[in-house]
């Protein structure tokens, strides 16, 4: 198994990998407020961003942090903030603004035990539904979940790419285990990494219609100060960006918001599978729990159970197609989570009686162990 030692081999923490991913993706603006277990992201970026000509601001709170990254993004920067549960709650209102004004930005939420101050130094997965439905109003959003240090690097880049391509906020969910675990990673060389930038308007400023529909449903985005003057508002707006009350315009606008994400399902809905081909029972997991699940699948196979793992990399839009395949194939699936069952509810929703859906929940501040998952697999 010994492999050639490469120059791209690093020993990084999950949070450090997020920083490396963000800088690789071209992030030049970070505003945030430190919070365990996400503080390292702010700490490192406060040093690294100025070195590459970027801006780091420690804001007075998370409400302002979210406001600042929206502003920076409208001015043309790729922007990001990082927080944990309590801060993420404060960001929700402005997150909705980013949805309706179609402002690309990345929000990293390193999950810890909650609610409220909860368990600052323990892992949890309690913010899954907050990421999906935390802001008010009906809205589409992209939520990704990282499970290893390597993932943290790659998914941060993906998060920026999706944000830029679809003009949407993207939430990257990490957790204390992923964030603080240090491990050996191999980062791909810069030239092998695909980076997407938002499309700028190519027409002269006087012809620019800032929210006009097109085949992708994603209008080109002009940076403030580039000479393209347009109006940005949190009110539902017409194609020129001004508030509207006309039902036809409202419906067209809302439908486009959803359509632009729906059209990208193929690319956005990411999953990884492990020994799923001949599996009769499967684990559906995400985040750090997916690591325990991988080990549990190997242990269960040793005991003669045909187990497999479907790891959800994208949580929302919920990767329904992939999950349905597994539900059709297996006689039972197990959804282990560090909450009382937020994704298991989604799995049950798409299951529609196809197979047995079992939950495995842990709330004591520890990571679900491979043994816990394996014993459940032996039982079902």
């Amino acid at each position, binding site marked *: *198994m*010994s*492999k050639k*030692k490469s120059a791209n*081999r690093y*020993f990084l923490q999950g949070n450090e990998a997020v920083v490396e991913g963000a800088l690789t993706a071209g992030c030049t603006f970070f505003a945030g407020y430190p919070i*365990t277990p996400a503080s390292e992201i702010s700490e490192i970026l406060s040093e690294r961003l100025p070195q590459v000509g970027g801006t780091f601001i420690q804001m007075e709170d998370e409400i302002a942090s979210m406001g600042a990254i929206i502003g920076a993004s409208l001015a043309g920067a790729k922007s990001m903030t990082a927080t944990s549960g309590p801060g993420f709650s404060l960001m929700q209102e402005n997150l909705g603004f980013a949805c309706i004004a179609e402002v690309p930005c990345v929000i990293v939420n390193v999950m810890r035990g909650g609610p409220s101050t909860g*368990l*600052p*130094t*323990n892992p949890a997965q309690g913010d899954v539904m907050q990421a999906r439905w935390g802001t008010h109003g009906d809205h589409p959003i992209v939520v990704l979940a990282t499970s290893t240090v390597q993932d943290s690097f790659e998914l941060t880049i993906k998060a920026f790419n999706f944000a830029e391509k679809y003009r949407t906020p993207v939430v990257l969910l990490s957790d204390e*285990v992923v964030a*603080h*675990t*240090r*491990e*050996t990673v191999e980062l791909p060389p810069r030239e092998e990494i695909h980076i997407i930038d938002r499309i700028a308007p190519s027409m002269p400023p006087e012809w620019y219609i800032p929210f006009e529909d097109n085949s992708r449903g994603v209008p080109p985005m002009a940076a403030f100060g580039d000479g393209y003057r347009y109006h940005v508002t949190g009110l539902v707006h017409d194609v020129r960006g001004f508030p509207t009350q006309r039902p036809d315009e409202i419906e067209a606008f809302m439908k486009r918001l959803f359509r632009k994400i729906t059209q990208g399902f193929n690319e956005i809905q990411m999953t990884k599978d492990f*020994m799923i*081909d*001949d599996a009769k029972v499967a684990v559906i997991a995400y985040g*750090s729990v997916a*690591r*325990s699940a*991988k*080990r549990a*699948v*190997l*242990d269960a*196979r*040793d005991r003669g159970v*045909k187990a497999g793992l479907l790891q959800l990399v994208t949580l929302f839009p919920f990767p329904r197609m992939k999950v349905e395949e597994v539900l059709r194939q297996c006689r039972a699936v197990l959804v282990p989570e560090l909450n009382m069952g937020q994704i298991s509810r989604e799995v049950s929703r798409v299951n529609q009686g196809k197979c047995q859906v079992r939950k495995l929940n842990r709330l004591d501040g520890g*990571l679900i*162990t*491979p*043994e816990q998952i394996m014993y459940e697999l032996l039982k079902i």
Partner: protein
Amino acid sequence: MKGRKGKKRRKEQKGLSRYEIRLGGSGGQGIITAARIFAEAVSEHTRKFVCQSQSYGPEARGGASKAEIVISEEPIDYPKATKPDLLLAMNQAACDTYFSDLKSEGILVVDSSLVDQVPTSRSIGIPFTEIARKEVGKELVANMVALGALTCLTKAVSPKGVEKILLAKVPKGTVEMNRKAFRAGISAVKKLGDLDLPKPEEVEEEL
């Protein structure tokens, strides 16, 4: 087909290819720092995969603190230690709490200046804190004494390799103090004589 491949993988993992270390003590003793340096040295100076995780309370000092290192020939799935091959306890509470997890043939190392009651006669007692106080003049570096001992006992990476990372990581002005502590830890293990310990494969010298 895939199942068979899985079984082969598991057999590899059941051998010495996965080696787990747990360090326990109280917050402020520098346990996580020591684990981090050790793990980085293994990652930097060998071809093995290494994963270091931690668990601690919200307090700046005090409270239980734990750091774990998993060393493996192949990419590591579960990042935590389940059955440590080596447990290093820096206080009585850590020794009491984690001893039951130790592998039956695992090694228990305790700071004998802080642990009075050892649960087994097969433990190795080294007075890290006392050595730090007497030989270096600061209890603060007990973690580096422990790091020296850990390096010597596991033989997962050369002491030179660890020292290199250690010197790069510690704050300027404390380099001498830390080096002295680290070396004191190594000589403390050497004084114990031939221990005949299970260890993770050969050391790869790449310095």
